[in-house]
């Protein structure tokens, strides 16, 4: 599958937990995640988010984030990356779950975009 999902959270356990939740319904989707700072504290890490993007086997990546600096860091990583990165301003878990379920169901990018639209909250 050439569509994947990246999760970026301020807390490592939130990112891990979201991964666990998503993987259950989307076992074949490339899902990677980053949580917390380099030291495992609450915050964002450029290095971790960059790694989550680089670990992706998909070429087009939907990215979901919880708060401010996770988004800004995703933006910076995206500017440096060759991959097609779509940072989605959707409700964090609902958005990621929707994308994963649809990718698992072989939906096309355009259809997924349409489904994500009403979930935009930020």
């Amino acid at each position: 599958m050439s569509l994947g999902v990246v999760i970026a959270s301020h807390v490592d356990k939130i990112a891990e937990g979201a991964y666990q939740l998503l993987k259950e319904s989307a076992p074949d989707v490339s899902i990677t995640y980053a949580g917390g700072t380099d030291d495992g504290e609450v915050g964002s890490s450029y290095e971790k988010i960059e790694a989550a993007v680089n670990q992706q086997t998909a070429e087009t990546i939907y990215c979901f984030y919880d708060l401010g600096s996770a988004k800004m860091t995703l933006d910076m990583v995206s500017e440096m990356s060759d991959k097609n990165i779509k940072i989605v301003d959707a409700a964090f878990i609902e958005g990621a779950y929707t994308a994963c379920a649809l990718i698992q169901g072989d939906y096309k990018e355009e259809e997924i975009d349409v489904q994500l639209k009403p979930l935009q909250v930020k």
Partner: protein
Amino acid sequence: MELTGEQAQRWILCFQEKIEKNKAYLSDLDQAIGDGDHGSNMYRGVQAVKEKLNELEDPTTEEVLKTTAMALISKVGGASGPLYGSAFMQMAKTAKETTELPELIQAGLEGIKQRGKAELKDKTMVDAWAPVAEALTNGTFSNDTIDQAVEDTKPLQAKKGRASYVGERSIGALDPGAVSSGYLFTALVEEVLK
């Protein structure tokens, strides 16, 4: 007025000292309307900056600014990382063309606005950077410009960042990012402009 590499290095190292000294105060300000980590975030960042800058010998202005940007981006861990990081990155890019101070600070402001999408009066560091950039350009800059800009964040209600989640409760508090930006400009006065 042009900023030399040597001046840029002293400027940023002076900023590091001010952050170190005011680390607890910045976190206290952030605790009131955010998550209480601005001081420790910035401290982590400027410590890394100091290490990297001390490795440079006779650096150009661009090198100092770029080194500062990279260290802040990789080490801060909060919104101020990408924001200050983008500011210094834009300044570094501009320094390839000109090292005139007003142009550099203006470029830094643009970097912050592009990254954070904040406008004037959203109660963010933009409210410290914009008046300073303007005053430097118009030749009306003084210490007062900095103090006034920082103080003027008090009555504002935050529209961006963590403080935007507390609604009207942010009114009456100083914006921590504006205060730390104030230190950056005070350091500029002390090391370069005076």
